[in-house]
């Protein structure tokens, strides 16, 4: 099998370094209080999962939805970094006009139906979006991310059961980073092998996949999408990954508390390093391209910060009160 060509792989690399740079910049801006608000959930460490998922979408046809760790999905889809950064700063030029914030990024043009901040609360939305695809026979599939923590609340059970009963075309991807906030999945779950839950719902179990390996992730999601698009119903994937920052950046003890694990994952399982070595191994003189992509990412992120900081704050009562109701207030 040929697999993705060089151009595609370089584009994955571009997305991954853009996400990493964006997230680490957010981390810095938060420390400097240039990003305000309390909650900021970074995607650093998870990049291969989002990029591999988006790579399998027919953009504009398939759908995607996630929880609050949502910046990386927007960037992988090609949403401009500028309005994403503006949203972090609560500016009117943000993707949600400053009303949603970091946890509620969305882009209707990309069928990115948003980031949601009630754990598990977006899962039935994914089912509903898939119901429309099935009802109108559009051939589209829905990708829905699920944190490992969310597998233990009622939404997971109700929604995956309904998706199984109705054969809804959803690819459910558990991003298992080992911790629901700070609690180890091993003590939070009666059976911490999360993909095995698929059996209970009559949906296809695609087992565990190395979420740091973008190639394996891509292949797995590709098979899953085919399954969903061809009318066979939902698929459950458990991607094993790791979070480089705390659940949210307000977790100030994270680096100390998790020092050993962090060092281990960063040294041996970093998704960007892994892809980089593969590319260097596979293509002669690719280093120059990679360096350029890294520099481009830095530039794009810097420009996004400049744009966001120069954007006006929404400040009128009229603006505040708009879009509460559709039409007449």
């Amino acid at each position, binding site marked *: 099998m040929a697999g993705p060509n060089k151009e595609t792989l370089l584009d994955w690399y571009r997305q991954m370094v853009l996400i990493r740079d964006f997230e680490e910049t957010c981390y810095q801006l938060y420390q400097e209080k240039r990003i305000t608000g309390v909650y900021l959930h970074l995607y650093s460490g998870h990049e291969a999962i989002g990029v591999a998922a988006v790579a399998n979408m027919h953009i504009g046809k398939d759908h995607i939805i996630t929880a609050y760790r949502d910046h990386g999905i927007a960037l992988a889809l090609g949403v401009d970094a500028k309005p994403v950064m503006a949203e972090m700063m609560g500016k009117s030029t943000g993707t949600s006009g400053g009303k949603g914030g970091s946890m509620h990024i969305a882009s209707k043009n990309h069928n990115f139906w948003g980031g949601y901040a009630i754990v598990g609360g977006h899962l039935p939305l994914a089912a*509903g979006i898939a119901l429309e695809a099935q009802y109108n026979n559009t051939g589209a599939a829905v990708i829905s991310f699920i944190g490992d923590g969310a597998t233990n609340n009622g939404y997971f059970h109700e929604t995956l059961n309904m998706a199984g009963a109705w054969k809804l075309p959803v690819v459910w991807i558990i991003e298992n980073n080992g911790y629901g906030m700070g609690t180890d999945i091993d003590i939070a779950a009666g059976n911490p092998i999360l993909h095995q839950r698929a059996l209970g719902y009559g949906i296809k179990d695609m087992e565990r996949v190395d979420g740091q390996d973008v190639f394996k992730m891509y292949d797995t999601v590709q098979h899953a999408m085919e399954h969903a698009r061809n009318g066979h119903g939902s698929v459950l994937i458990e991607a094993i990954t790791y979070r480089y920052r705390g659940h949210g950046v307000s977790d100030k003890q994270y680096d100390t508390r998790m020092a050993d694990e962090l060092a281990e994952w960063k040294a041996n399982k970093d998704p960007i390093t892994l892809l980089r070595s593969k590319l260097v191994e596979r293509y002669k003189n690719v280093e120059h391209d990679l360096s350029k992509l890294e520099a481009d990412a830095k530039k794009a992120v810097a420009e996004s910060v400049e744009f966001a900081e120069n954007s006006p704050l929404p400040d009128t009562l009229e603006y505040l009160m708009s*879009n509460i109701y559709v039409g007449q207030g």
Partner: protein
Amino acid sequence: MKRMSFVQALNDALDIMMAEDERVFLLGEDIGHMGGDFGVTRGLFTKYGGERVRDTPLSEAAIIGTAVGAAMVGMRPVPEIMFADFLGTCYDQIVNNAAKMHYMFDGQFKAPIVIRTAAGGGFGGGPHHSQSVEGWFMNVPGLVIVGPSTPQDAKGMLIACIENDNPVLFLEHKALYRVRGDVDEGKFSVPLRKAHIAREGTDVTIVASMKMTHEALAAAEELAAENISVEVVDLRTLRPWDTQTVLESVAKTGRAIVANEAPKMGGLGSDVSATIAEECFSHLKAPVKRVCGLDTPIPFSVPLEKVILPNKDDIKKAVQDTLAH
């Protein structure tokens, strides 16, 4: 005009909208094969099939969330939650997703769903099948709450709700399901956010909705024999409610009674009476009075339940007290 029950009027509205618009579909527990616990969807499964009249698992949170998701991508779902008391199990979807969807993403998305549910007590339904729940949702910007009192309004408002782009909680009081009345044939809509003067009067205004509208009208009829002229305002839309009609009526009569079946504390009755006091103080000849349910859960035993739920006699007494002030 056709004489029909509240249930038949609702069924007619659903039938008309489903025939006209393929995006409209129903989902809920036992609404298909069984035709719904109260028969509101009877016959629709046979006519439109299981894809458009969907029997669901017993998963209220997934029912409402799925409806919201489908609505975001252009469908017009009308989910049924069998009893309003069960809304606690899908509260998060209504409050945090449906009602905030449009605002949270600054207008990119909308969630036009109509959640039909059977509310209210008086039948020995017990603590989990009898509650009036509008107060649970009064504090939720973005949500529309509707509670009709007549078959005509039930049909016209349900059509209006399905055509509306906002999420709606559509309360059907169980005591009204068998009430019959004249209903216009074919498609028509009754405007949302517009109260109805159910009876004109000059001495006192009673603001009511759903079953309490009937209790208020019965009280008004008896008070007329005592030469007391009562105006009854039927709110119909409970959120956002029609302040203009209410305030104009109170400005005219100078006295206000707010009748609401739910517990007194923190409910619709509180909001209406507070708004009258704030906005209409100079017109008031007496303090605003609330006639509400007692602040207790609803017990199973019918004699106990009768004590808790407000009725015609409680409203009558409140009117007399107000006039004696």
